[in-house]
């Protein structure tokens, strides 16, 4: 990253932290404030009312949202919504939706399963839905669980395998007959997930959107974006937990001295810093590769996702431990980050799944 860009990101990060920072999980800024800040339109082309920025800027927002454990539908609408639309062939419908996301008029979700299915699947190779020809026209069937921000979305994009075998995107409203969205309450209540089920929904030809380029590669790329979004979230919340723990260890006294002066505590904090430093370096490299459109970025993505999300659970867990009895209370809020870190670790491919993808290159 050039120094100019990192300066720019520094300012952008400060603004993001300011907006999200003091909010906490219960007082996250509303979607209006988020859209007002221009974040959903970051990757929307300028001609369509967006900023024409890249995933590198989106990553800054994601990290800060993880740090604040913010409750926003940003992943569904922007990371996956805008990300998916940018992979589709341009047209009035696609362009209109991009414009609507940038302006805050639309808040879609993409029915990509956060649960990638069988063990060993880091990024799903095939869409969770299928289109079949029937006398009634094209019929959609399938099921995706742990879909980010599905419940409150005003429009659904469903990745599906077309009758010809290639992935396409079905653009449907949430009230299309035969499509059901069920909210999935989770231990991490800072985020909203839902199950999307299609049981023979009839889909008009006009609502099919085709990927530009290789559709299978485009669909996998969407999975990489989702994994990367989660890795950024995990990095941000690890940093928050490290900061909180260092601050606490500096003021909490036992045996007549700050607990941070004890080696057992100090060394644990040092280990947290090493893990966060390593995670940040891997996330930066993967974000850069993904933003640059590097076709081999998946290796860096899998490294970042597996390491950062595993580290986040360790760091948040150590934070709870070092906060002592206070850390175990509901009031302290450490549990909020720990649960979010645990969910991040499981979403869009577990660490083992992603390492397995990396290891395929050794055969």
């Amino acid at each position: 990253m050039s120094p100019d860009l990192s300066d720019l990101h520094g300012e952008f990060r400060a603004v993001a932290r300011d907006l999200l920072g003091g909010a906490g999980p219960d007082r996250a800024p509303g979607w209006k404030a988020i859209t007002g800040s221009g974040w959903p339109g970051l990757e929307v082309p300028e001609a369509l009312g967006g900023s024409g920025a890249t995933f590198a800027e989106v990553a800054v927002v994601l990290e800060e949202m993880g740090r604040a454990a913010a409750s926003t539908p940003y992943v569904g609408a922007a990371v996956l919504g805008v990300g998916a639309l940018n992979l589709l062939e341009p047209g009035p419908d696609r362009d209109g939706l991009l414009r609507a996301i940038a302006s805050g008029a639309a808040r879609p979700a993409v029915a990509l399963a956060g649960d990638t299915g069988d063990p060993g699947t880091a990024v799903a190779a095939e869409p969770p839905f299928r289109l079949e020809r029937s006398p009634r026209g094209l019929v959609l069937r399938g099921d995706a669980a742990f879909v980010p921000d599905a419940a409150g979305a005003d429009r659904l994009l469903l990745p599906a395998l077309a009758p010809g075998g290639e992935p396409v995107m079905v653009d449907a409203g949430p009230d299309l007959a035969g499509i059901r969205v069920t909210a999935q309450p989770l231990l991490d209540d800072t985020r909203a997930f839902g199950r999307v089920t299609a049981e023979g929904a009839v889909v008009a030809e006009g609502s099919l959107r085709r990927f530009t380029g290789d559709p299978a590669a485009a669909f996998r790329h969407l999975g990489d974006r989702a994994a990367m979004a989660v890795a950024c979230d995990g990095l941000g919340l690890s940093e928050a937990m490290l900061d909180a723990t260092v601050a606490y260890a500096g003021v909490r006294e036992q045996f007549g001295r700050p607990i941070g002066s004890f080696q057992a505590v100090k060394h644990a904090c040092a280990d947290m810093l090493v893990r966060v430093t390593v995670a940040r370096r891997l996330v930066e490299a993967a974000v850069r590769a993904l933003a640059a459109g590097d076709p081999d970025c998946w290796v860096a993505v899998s490294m970042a996702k597996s390491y950062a999300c595993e580290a986040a659970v360790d760091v948040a867990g150590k934070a709870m431990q070092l906060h002592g009895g206070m850390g175990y209370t509901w009031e302290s809020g450490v549990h909020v980050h720990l649960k979010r870190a645990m969910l991040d670790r499981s979403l869009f491919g577990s660490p083992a799944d992603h390492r397995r993808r990396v290891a395929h290159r050794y055969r």
Partner: protein
Amino acid sequence: MTGVRGTAHDLAEFRAEVRGWCREHIPADWRRAQTGVPEEEFVAFQKEWFQELRRAGFAVPHWPREWGGGMPVAEQIILYQELAAHDAPRLVLAFVAIHHAAATLLAAGTDEQRRRHLPAILDGEIWAQGFSEPGAGSDLAALSTTARRQDDGYVVNGQKVWASGAAHADWCLLLARTDPGAPKRRGISYFLLDMSTPGIDVRPIRQATGESHFCEIFLDDVVIPRTCLVGRENDGWRVAQETLGAERGMTMLELAERLGNAGFRWLLETCARPGPGGARPVDDALVADRLAGFETELTALRALCRDLVERHDAGTPGPADASVVKLFYSELLQRMTGFGAEIAGPAAHAELRKPLSSGWESGAWALDFIGSWEWTIPGGTSEIQRTIIGERGLGLPREPRGGR
């Protein structure tokens, strides 16, 4: 090498140049040839390799131009990447001379000291470091070797330990107490010690690996002329603090590149070797998982080392950056070599010697694993690094200490 370099094109050209040089000049089969050779052959090989690098301008790229270096940092990074990728022998014997001794002379030495030693180092002068003592390891400032003023110099008495390569050293960087009454960090001076001075007895220590690179140095009424004092009298602790970490960036980068290149390659090869029944470890899901974890950490390590070098060059290093890298490298090396030994099985224990001049990842995994404690203990143990990271990096309160 003239003109302004630094564009991507120039750097690509430089990389090609270094690659060509590596293919032509790295002795084929040096690993096998250097396994189990007597000490003299190791020394001769090291000296020859140093001169080979010197002829190419690769021996002291990090020195200032007027002393024979002046390679831009971006090129040094490429140089070490390529030397590692081509599995070049490591500069073991010249290490202290070209890094610690040079850094000390350049930062705190007199013109005369520089003129006397920097060209000599290029000609093959070997240096050792006489810092640690039996009673002063992690607590280095507790050292008790004394240097008493006498006539126009000092008389030194005491014992140094863990002096790597001292058996072959011409000179030694020496810390000794010049004011026993002062607080312990304020009574130490920094000297250049000629190892041919009467009264010096060097005894190699046999290490856990069976090798004897480290030495004890006994000093019995050894006379050091005043011209060999570095910096002011009683200011040696500060000089040592300033120069110790000076070269950590580039040396760590070289080691990280070695571990990430040849080291990981050999680990993959070890894991791809079929067992007696034909099964390959790499086909086992648990083994593949561990390998991917190592590759991930190596990728981060190499990037962190590049950051460290670039920040050092820009004059903006974080207070604990070097400690983070040293700690992470040391423990990653230990876990990786330990895993190699686990996978290689009993066969790893039948490799009784590893090639001299190799790095800490020679592929003789059982010995490499034992040798990895050479990283978690010296140069500030992992425990000391964690304390530095906690206090300087995170600003945590210091531990109450006795006897300053």
